[in-house]
């Protein structure tokens, strides 16, 4: 049987509240939206979700990355994610983009891949959409990522059926020149777009499989907002208890990731044998019928939402490049060299260093150079690759650095000693400054570095283990 074998979700720790947005624009706002850190994007969040999802499993043979906010217009993001996850080069990678439905479409493609013989396939869905300041989408759109592994054994939920329709409809869009989400008139896009389409896919899917609302423990589906969500649930005859909370009050509408994140949350609240009706929306709909096999172990959605830090509106503007700020009067750092980054691709993508075959010392060069001579025993060219990205470590010493280029000053950087050996000097991220101390346990996280001209300079930072 084919189904979901593992789940992962990444909710960035930062929140912007409706109240804070309201303070800026003298409006009344409520709820909160999750905001990606200044050094995060859909690629880094997808890596975080995928690494959580893949933990302890054998590597997937396909990785599909779904988003409407890929960092590049031309250049695949799935291969960056696959590289950071240290997948084999034979892993099939693809980007699914340009529609909010990309998440469920990628999921169905992963199911097809496994049906066609792949041992497993992973799907990531993530978004960082921007609503224009002072506009209705500003407080509505949140940032997050989700990952689901599709495979054949040890299932969390089997996939009993699916049904998809396409439907060209201009409700929300961004042309290649738009920074902010555009949309049609509110009632029109709801009454003639989302509501009939979602109603139809849910009821037709149930009809196709001769099932009724009472046959489902949970119904999980995308909606543009909480009101639309409630309206669908009521119209189709599901009770409140059956309807999965869209989490929009807590993290906002996370776009491509939204339905999948709801599904991850729903899987925590069901029992083996239960059915879930699940649907994504965007230029049509995809629906799936899932049968629960067991509950996921590990972190719950509640755990993932628990650690949060509210930011002010000014930080939000700066992090999302919505305001021009005075450049520091410090010398500009050099632009990344593509050829040197290519030579160091192993280190950059999944933080590979070296382990001396003679003395066994793990080592990572601070300049990002290839280690040719062992720092411990001076043996030449006698190394095996050694991965640091999955190692935890401890902060040996640090500086709270006002001169570090960061959009969330002051910077924190320091010397990390990895458990199992090896040392790295690097930036930290997602820290509480007052908790910074010698000996603090850290893990590695894939982020965007501040120095990026032309290309996006992804690399690894350390973050406190909470």
């Amino acid at each position, binding site marked *: 049987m084919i189904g979901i074998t593992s789940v992962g979700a990444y909710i960035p720790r930062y929140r912007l509240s409706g109240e804070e947005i309201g303070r800026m624009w003298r409006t009344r706002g409520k709820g909160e939206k999750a905001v990606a850190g200044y050094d995060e994007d859909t690629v880094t969040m997808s890596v975080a979700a995928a690494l959580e999802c893949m933990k302890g499993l054998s590597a997937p043979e396909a990785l599909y990355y779904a988003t409407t906010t890929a960092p590049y217009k031309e250049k695949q993001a799935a291969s960056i994610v696959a590289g950071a996850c240290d997948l084999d080069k034979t892993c099939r990678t693809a980007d699914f983009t340009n529609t909010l439905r990309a998440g469920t479409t990628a999921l169905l493609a992963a199911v097809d891949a496994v049906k066609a013989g792949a041992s497993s396939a992973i799907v990531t869905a993530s978004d960082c959409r921007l609503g224009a300041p002072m506009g209705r989408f500003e407080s509505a759109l949140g940032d997050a990522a989700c990952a689901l592994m599709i495979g054949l054994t040890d299932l969390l939920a089997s996939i009993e059926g699916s049904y998809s329709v396409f439907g060209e409809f201009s409700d929300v869009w961004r042309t290649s020149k738009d920074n902010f989400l555009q949309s049609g008139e509110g009632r029109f896009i709801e009454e003639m777009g989302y509501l009939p389409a979602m109603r139809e896919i849910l009821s037709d899917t149930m009809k196709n499989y001769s099932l009724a609302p009472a046959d489902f423990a949970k119904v999980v589906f995308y909606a543009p907002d909480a009101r639309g969500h409630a309206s669908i649930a009521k119209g189709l005859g599901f009770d409140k208890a059956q309807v999965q909370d869209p989490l929009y009050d807590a993290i906002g509408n996370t776009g491509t990731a939204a339905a999948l994140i709801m599904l991850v949350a729903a899987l925590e609240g069901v029992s083996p044998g239960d059915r879930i009706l699940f649907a994504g929306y965007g230029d049509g709909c995809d629906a799936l019928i899932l049968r629960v096999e067991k509950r996921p172990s590990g972190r719950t959605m509640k755990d993932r939402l628990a650690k949060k830090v509210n930011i002010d509106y000014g930080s939000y503007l700066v992090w999302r490049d919505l305001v021009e700020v005075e450049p520091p009067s410090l010398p500009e750092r050099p632009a990344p060299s593509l050829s040197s980054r290519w030579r160091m691709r192993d280190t950059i993508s999944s933080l590979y260093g070296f382990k001396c075959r003679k003395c066994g010392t793990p*080592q990572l060069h601070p300049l990002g150079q290839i280690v040719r001579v062992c720092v411990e025993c001076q043996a030449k060219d006698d190394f095996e690759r050694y991965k640091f990205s999955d190692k935890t470590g401890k902060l*040996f*010493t640090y500086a709270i650095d*006002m001169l*570090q280029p960061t959009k969330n000053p002051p*910077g924190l950087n*320091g010397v990390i000693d990895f458990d199992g050996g090896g040392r790295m*000097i690097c*930036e930290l991220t997602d820290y509480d400054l007052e908790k910074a101390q*010698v000996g603090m346990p850290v893990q590695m996280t894939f982020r965007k570095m501040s120095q990026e001209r032309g290309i996006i300079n992804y690399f690894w930072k350390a973050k406190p283990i909470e």
Partner: protein
Amino acid sequence: MESIKDKVAIIGMGCTRFGERWDAGVEDLLVEAAYEAFEDAGVAPKDMQAAWLGTVFSGMSAMTLSPLGLQFIPITRVENMCATGSEALRGAAYAVAAGVCDMALAIGVEKLKDSGLTGVRGPAVVGDNPDGSACIGSGYSAPASFAYLGTRYFHHYGIDRDEGKELLAKIAVKNHQHGSLNPKAHFHNVITVEQAVKAPIVAWPLGLFDCCGVSDGAAAAIVVRADMAKNFRSDPIYIKGMAISAGARQGSMRPAYDYVHIDENVFAGQQAYAQAGVKDPRKEISCAEVHDCFSTNELIVYEDLGFSRRGGAKEDINAGAFTLQGDLPINTDGGLKCFGHPLGASGLRMLYEMYKQLQGKAGPRQVKNPRLALTHNLGGNAGAGIGCVVIVGNELK
């Protein structure tokens, strides 16, 4: 292996006023420092048989020295990060010791303030390629890499944050006090411990007064065979020991490195002491200039060079041991903190002060009856450094 001891003498030195020298270009700084040295030695530019020029950013080749108009002699441009000035001296001194020339010029210069920026650009920003292009591009600053020493030192020796900040402040207060007595220094203001402790943070635990000045300047030395020195002046200064130790980034890669000392300092110090025959540096060294680019570095250098016992810098600082009134005055000219830090010039600037001290010409900063003086110059940072120690004396024996 022979020691450099007593083979080479310094017969003339020059040093410009350091600071934001809007009035002076590289050419002006070079001419100002070199001609002070020529006049001090009573020699002419045409007497130079070879020259070593140290600069990190202010020129690429030997021709950077062309403002002096030297006529077709061998000139070598050297670079060893912040130890570049000492590197120029090494080249000139070794050439004289080798007998390939009898008189050579060592000169260092840096013009940092034409950039229009407040900091120092660095091709060797950690995470970048040495050619200036970036590979990984970790964004931490130069002060941060020295802040690591402070954070770890405080942790290692159980010094709380307030006490640690105060300890660093006392080093800055001392150097400002010394700098205030020096017309050539970049800064002349006297500060209090409270001012230093409360100053804006640059890279915790380093505040504004824990960080040296970004300055323009040049310094020069004329070296000759020791046996010729008295032909030029009655009070030449002799090189007693000179050692450099370059790390291979061991500290940045090996968890065994503790960030409360710098191996490169220790090795350079031990070699220079051995050459000079110094057994007890605290007693035998009369005064020293050490590399206080950040006050944490001066703190650990006290211990690395054996002026204080390991972990004992605190008691020596609190006792005022390294002030002009103490038993081993350090950074009598204000140090990098107050005199300023034009990278390529600093090593020779340190030597200039020790030269003047040993000749009894340091004016209000004069140390009583100095015999042996030391300069310590550090390139790079903790974990990846170049330590250089030079010992000079005013007696030949």
